């Protein structure tokens, strides 16, 4: 299935993309998609902390991602 990934902050610069569509297997979890993206982008892989939000929420690592979900990747936040 295809899922839509968005990148923010430094990860947007690491990937050179605001978003992209990735082909992944059915039933992929948050943890698995994180490893998948780390495998594509060494600079993300080198980061100690990679945050993943699904539809704007921090879910459990074993949450299964659906095709219609919006998945966002970003580093620790630094607003305020």
């Amino acid at each position: 299935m295809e899922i839509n990934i968005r990148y923010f902050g430094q990860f947007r610069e690491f990937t050179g993309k605001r978003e992209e569509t990735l082909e992944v297997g059915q039933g992929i979890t948050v943890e698995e998609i994180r490893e998948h993206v780390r495998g594509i982008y060494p600079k993300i892989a080198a980061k100690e902390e990679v945050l993943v939000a699904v539809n704007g929420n921090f879910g459990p690592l074993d949450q299964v991602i659906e095709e219609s979900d919006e998945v966002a990747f970003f580093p620790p936040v630094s607003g305020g």
Partner: protein
Amino acid sequence: MIKIQGKDIDIEGILDSVKSPASGGVVTFLGTVRDNAKGRSVAKMSIEVYEAMAVTELEAIRSEALEKFGVHEVAVVHRYGELEVGDNIVFIAVAAGHREEAFKACKYVIDELKQRVPIWKKEMTPEGEFWVEGEKHE
């Protein structure tokens, strides 16, 4: 009131919106662009926001502050885009019956914002551009 916006913050307007006859005071926090960071001079700042999620998280933090501290009203406005030294970044206003809970709630909101709300700052310095490192999560 929760807002994410590019334009400057209407501080007077927000103060008016949180005040009420039952409130004995308003505690505020105003974050601004500092001209230095980690020994480097900062010329400008760029702020990026994941807007939909940021609004949801700020609404949640506002609700938590209202419930935990029993304050009357909480407003948070955060800016994005290109900012200059001295520009306003974030404004928090908490109205409460008494000052103690208002100070506590205001600190809670800014501390949680810095931990949870998907916003990233990048500093432009003479030595180059640097993303501000967020705090690690346990």
